[in-house]
């Protein structure tokens, strides 16, 4: 890990330590927050007991589905918009202002259409994650050095070879940004929609624990979500850095 990585870790550990002291010394009431160490113990106990394994399974499947749809859909839509200048000129203002309206406002409408099940949650998560992937795909394709595409033409590369063996890897630094954001937004989309009108999922369990004043379970589950999100982001970051380091000039 780099020096700055250690500094970042020290900041997070320091913040957790301060919170631990504040909670243990009752400066922060246990009715508001439990010490971070107890959150981790609670998270471990929830995992070990298997009490909510079905909820974890449903959330993880929904998140993975949303991630897959956001990334693949975002890439191909981005590619199509990039390839069709008229479509791009038409859609660009929508893309630029897309996140000014939170997609979650459409959740009730989706429930009316699809009912209370996983589909509206996945759609909300995809609505969160897809557009960031589209925007970053277009950004990445815009920044491909033209000479690399000329090499493809000189080698008479087919459309698919040009897309998958030249454009995709050449745009990879931007695609990784899109993938990282799509992963984060998919988690946000699924967990936040599980909070509202859902009978299953980690978000539902957090909401249930909150309504039942069960702080220990609630914070344990929050720690669990934090852990999953951090692990996914860290893995992506490490992988992308390792890959991109090879080609850095």
């Amino acid at each position: 890990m780099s020096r700055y990585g250690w500094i970042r870790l020290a900041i997070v550990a320091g913040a957790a330590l301060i919170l631990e002291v504040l909670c243990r010394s009752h400066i922060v009431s246990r009715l508001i927050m439990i010490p971070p160490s107890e959150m981790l113990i609670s998270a471990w106990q929830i995992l070990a007991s298997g009490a909510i394994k079905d909820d974890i399974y449903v959330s993880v499947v929904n998140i993975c589905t949303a991630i897959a749809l956001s990334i693949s859909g975002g890439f191909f839509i981005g590619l199509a918009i990039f390839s069709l200048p008229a479509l791009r000129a038409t859609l660009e203002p929508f893309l630029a202002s897309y996140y000014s309206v939170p997609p979650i406002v459409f959740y009730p409408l989706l429930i009316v259409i699809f009912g209370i099940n996983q589909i509206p949650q996945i759609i909300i998560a995809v609505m969160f994650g897809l557009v960031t992937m589209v925007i970053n795909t277009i950004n990445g394709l815009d920044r491909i050095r033209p000479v690399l595409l000329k090499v493809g033409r000189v080698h008479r590369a087919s459309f698919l070879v040009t897309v998958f063996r030249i454009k995709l890897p050449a745009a990879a630094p931007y695609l990784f940004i899109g993938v990282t954001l799509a992963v984060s937004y998919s988690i946000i989309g699924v967990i936040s929609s599980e909070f509202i009108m859902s009978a299953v999922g980690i978000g539902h369990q957090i909401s249930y624990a909150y309504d039942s004043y069960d702080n220990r379970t609630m914070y344990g589950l929050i720690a669990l979500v934090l852990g999953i999100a951090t692990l996914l982001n860290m893995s992506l970051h490490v992988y992308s850095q390792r890959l991109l380091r090879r080609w850095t000039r």
Partner: protein
Amino acid sequence: MDLPDATRTVHARVVGLTRVYPARDFQGAVNALGPVDLDLYKGEFFTIVGPSGCGKSTFLELLAGLALPTEGSIEFEGQPVRGQVPEGIGVVFQEDSSFPWLTVWDNVAFGLQCAGVDPAEVERRTNYAVGFMGLADFARSYPAQLSGGMRQRLCIARTLVLQPRLILLDEPFGALDQQTRLLMGDELLRLWRETGATILLITHALDEATMLSDRIGAMSARPGRLLEIISTHWSADRDSRIVGDERFGAITARLWVLLRQQSMKAIGRAGTEAAV
């Protein structure tokens, strides 16, 4: 290469080639090239020299089929070239065009894989091209781990592996230091002799043009036209040591006489000497 032109096989023919970039935003139409007429003979080493912005690279892109001419025609081996790169033409670009995400070996094999060549043949030809360009020890390295000269050798190997019959080089050594350029010139001559390919080199370096070429076309400032074609009469087994030959200086001087006024025109100083 001293055969009279009439007895030699025309490999590529350019007739009345012009390229005008249409008006855009606040800029009027730009007449970038031509008209240019040129016959490239099979197996010759032809170089085009000219001032910056005279349309040399535009000429190469048109000849390669990477761009469409405004007027005129191009033929390669008797077939028209128009907006698509024909089989048998290889191009090496001025800027580093290696794929940074592929190893040296995979970069070189790329074209063969695109063409659907049998994997065993890909292996054999790629190994040969990598070895030929002196990159065998770096086959598993990434371009970022190579020097500028080695990266350019990689790009040449990637072109060479396809066994092109016409190789177009757009200032391939432009970013290299003088000593490396001379050595790369030797490498290029060796490649030319061993492959028997026709080579068209674009450069702004007069000494490089003189050293490498059978014939040199001097191009005017924009819109680029061929002012004169000079035959060097070098033997095919020449190398960079011919810079010591007395004819070398005479040919280079002749090129400079042709291009000095054009270069001044290109930098907007035409006529200043006359005024002084």
